[in-house]
């Protein structure tokens, strides 16, 4: 109903703007190009103009320190209801960061353990200026790929400069016309883009619903391609390890069983799960205790748990060799920057215990403990939380757009930075706040956050759950 009122109000405001009664602050087309076909259609921007603009201050907040457990947010005010922003110059210091993907706490400002990164930066510089196939393969990349293959317990791995591009440039290499892709309905945009660019037929199955997937698989093999009934060339199942908006972990054992029964291939995007689930942080495969050879293509990113940037694809040597020659990004896009590669090497060594300490394991255990505590407490307080109990991504449902704005603003006042998500990343009526726990959150920080959530929950009537335990 909130959306209904907002929509009506939006039409009213548009009318006021068009008839000149209200000043329009949006940027406008050039005078010389007024007769061109309009660049944006009115309706596309309706949501943006009328709903998003009013609560825009909750997103794209800029910070001026490392995204560690505490960070500094730059204060930002708007004189004209969020059409433009102005930085006051004040900095809100030591805001508790419960929004950044910093699962193991490896993204923090420089300290002695990052010495090798500094050295690599000074020797190698920042850029590479060439593609992998031309002159862009550095010895650092080879070192990283070997280490990564050992970490994941696979034959070979290949790294790319950007996580998003890893999906969008490599899925088209693996499948093409005449192949079939089964993609979970809540897959990330990069996977959807890669699937679309490949030209294969895409069928979505209900989120984590194995029965639906099995039925679709059976129908696909029995009836073949639509209209011609020719057999499909190959079938690829695209899933994610942890889904970022739901916090749910994929039902891997069943998918692997299905894949083996129906001879399909499995591609798993472990962007959020690598380094954060599993007893030694090796991802959902380890979490479920499966054989490394069960999954055909491992994909992941280094942005979340490793505090760097970039993506990788790992698996059998044949697969990785094929990608080295045929991946779009190997031939046309530059390779990873050397200091970033060194940061990943450093993080991997830490996780694997190769640096001589048990810090990696300790951080993982702390993350598990934090996750358990946080989720349990929130459930006890009476909030509705999605997701698997072991996933460090905790979405809390807020449902209404106005509550989204109120929640985020109040939390910032209490010096806690949260991430809130609404349409179009989530369904229209299921706006949520998403908490990302980290191994470096202390119990004290978590308690502060939980207290604040509790207060706001009472203030804004967010305690929807009927299973309250207290």
């Amino acid at each position, binding site marked *: 109903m909130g959306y209904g009122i907002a929509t009506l109000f939006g039409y009213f405001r548009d009318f006021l703007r068009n008839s000149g009664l209200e000043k329009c602050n949006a*940027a*406008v087309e*050039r005078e010389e190009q007024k*007769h061109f*076909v309009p*660049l944006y259609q009115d309706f596309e921007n309706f949501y943006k103009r009328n709903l*998003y603009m009013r609560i825009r201050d909750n997103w*794209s*907040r*800029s*910070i*001026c*320190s490392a*995204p560690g457990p505490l960070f500094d947010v730059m204060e930002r005010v708007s004189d004209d209801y969020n059409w433009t922003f102005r930085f006051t110059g004040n900095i809100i210091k030591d805001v508790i*960061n419960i929004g*950044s993907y910093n699962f193991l706490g490896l*993204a923090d*400002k*420089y300290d002695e353990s990052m010495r090798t990164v*500094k050295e690599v*930066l000074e*020797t190698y*510089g*920042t*850029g*590479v*200026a*060439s593609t992998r196939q*031309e*002159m862009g*393969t*550095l*010895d650092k990349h080879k070192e990283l790929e070997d280490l990564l293959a050992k970490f994941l317990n696979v034959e070979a791995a290949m790294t790319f400069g950007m996580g998003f*591009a890893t999906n*969008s*440039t490599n899925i088209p290499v*693996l499948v093409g016309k005449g192949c079939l892709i089964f993609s979970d309905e809540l897959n*990330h945009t990069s996977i959807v883009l890669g699937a679309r*660019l490949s030209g294969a037929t895409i069928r979505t199955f209900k989120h984590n619903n194995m029965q639906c997937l099995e039925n679709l698989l*059976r129908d696909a093999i*029995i009836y073949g391609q639509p209209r011609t009934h020719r057999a*499909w060339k*190959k079938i690829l199942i695209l899933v994610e390890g942890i889904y970022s908006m739901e916090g749910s972990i994929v039902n891997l054992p069943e998918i692997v069983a299905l894949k083996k029964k129906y*001879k399909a291939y499995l591609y798993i995007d472990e962007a959020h799960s690598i380094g954060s689930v599993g007893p030694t942080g090796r991802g959902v495969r380890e979490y479920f205790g499966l054989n490394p050879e069960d999954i055909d293509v491992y994909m992941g990113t280094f942005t979340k748990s*490793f*505090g*760097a*940037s970039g993506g990788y694809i790992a698996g059998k040597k*044949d697969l990785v060799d*094929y990608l080295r*020659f*045929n991946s*779009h*990004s190997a031939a*046309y*896009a530059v390779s990873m*920057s*050397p200091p*970033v590669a060194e*940061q990943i090497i450093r993080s991997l060594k830490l996780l694997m215990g190769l640096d001589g300490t048990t810090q990696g394991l300790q951080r993982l255990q702390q993350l598990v403990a934090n996750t358990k505590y946080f989720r349990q407490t929130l459930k006890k307080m009476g909030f509705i939380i999605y997701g698997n109990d072991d996933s460090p991504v905790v979405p809390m449902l807020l449902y209404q757009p106005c509550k989204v704005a109120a929640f985020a603003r109040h939390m910032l006042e209490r010096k806690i930075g949260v991430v809130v998500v609404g349409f179009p990343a989530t369904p229209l009526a299921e706006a949520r706040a998403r908490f990302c726990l980290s191994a470096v959150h202390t119990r004290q920080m978590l308690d502060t956050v939980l207290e604040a959530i509790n207060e706001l929950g009472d203030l804004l009537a967010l305690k929807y759950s009927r299973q309250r335990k207290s």
Partner: protein
Amino acid sequence: MATAAEQWVLVEMVQALYEAPAYHLILEGILILWIIRLLFSKTYKLQERSDLTIKEKEELIEEWQPEPLVPPISKDHPAFNYNIVSGPPSHKIVVNGKECINFASFNFLGLLDSPRVKAAALASLKKYGVGTCGPRGFYGTFDVHLDLEEHLAKFMKTEEAIIYSYGFSTIASAIPAYSKRGDIIFVDRAACFAIQKGLQASRSDIKLFNHNDVADLERLLKEQEVEDQKNPRKARVTRRFIVVEGLYMNTGSICPLPELVKLKYKYKARIFLEESLSFGVLGEHGRGVTEHYGISIDDIDLISASMENSLASIGGFCCGRSFVIDHQRLSGQGYCFSASLPPLLAAAAIEALNIMEENPDIFAVLKKKCEQIHKALQGISGLKVVGECFSPAFHLQLKDSTGSREADVKLLQEIINQCMNKSIALTQARYLEKEEKFLPPPSIRVVVTVEQTKEELERAASTIKEVAQAVLL
């Protein structure tokens, strides 16, 4: 009482029957007879509806054999042996164990080795660490990013700029943000792969015109005009775009921008300019093709460039008027759904921009060096130079192809290997042969940077001449 009502209704009915016109009664009669016929006729047999039995389904599932996930690759594929660079890809580069002079990395302004750039990146590393742990919308926006965007906008004299964390994704996300299904894009045949992917993702109508052929483009635009007149309603909502590159990566030639701007206003299409190779190279201050031709930057709707060539960093940016650029903050897929650029790379780019602003004479120096080697490489037996004389990245193609692409590639690789033995590092221009729409012929890519001295350029030219003569004769 009920029967009276019934009778009353019956009377009405009978009366209606008498009063109805004749054709009405006949029509009703025919309909009733037809229905009776349909009800009693035999159902005609369709083809045997084959509903598979469960056993048959299981058999089909058993029998189906998929192709292997990846086909096997032959071991003598030219790209099989990557060049491995030990150490930094700087002016003197160590490739496969040999120290050579670098003629292959796109380090046009030599900023990869600049101590100032490294110091700025180091300062940023100390303050922010490496990663940003989030997309721009969720606490991934650092003050360094805002700084860089402001800097770029000021440098290019536009209202706003937006940065992406990967050069390939910049144009590949920018095009589909504006152009959707049903819109029309006119694009040059020699457009680079990233543009092709952007076009594919946009699902718009793509119309290709011959490379740098303004007459061909005008012909296509005229044809479109004729189409528009047939359907003005559709034409009023169909957006048109012209996508060109400043300096083409695949051919080293420059686009005829003044004529394109004239066509833009005549046929009401918007221009998207991709300046990866020309940013930081052309123009008096390095602002690219618009400065080179003296065209007002407001005439171009969107300029997209990669920071990976001249700016010695990673990533890309788009700049233009706020009206155009701001849209990408919510619709650019590579911007909204991807982690932001690591701050140390953004700081490196800011410092590189500062260096560019402080030394505007390096562009003239680079231009002279390009012209020098361009002239020196003319007249090599068997190889021809493809590209403008001021393009820092140009191609050397075989004058007469052997007939098969594989053999050509092998020949060129032989030339490159021998040049490497003589300490000149070169590379072949790599393409994905099966994916490119218009595959350019195999070539050696030569890249000129400001760090190469006159002697080195002469040596390179003479080495290539020698080797080419030896191999191709």
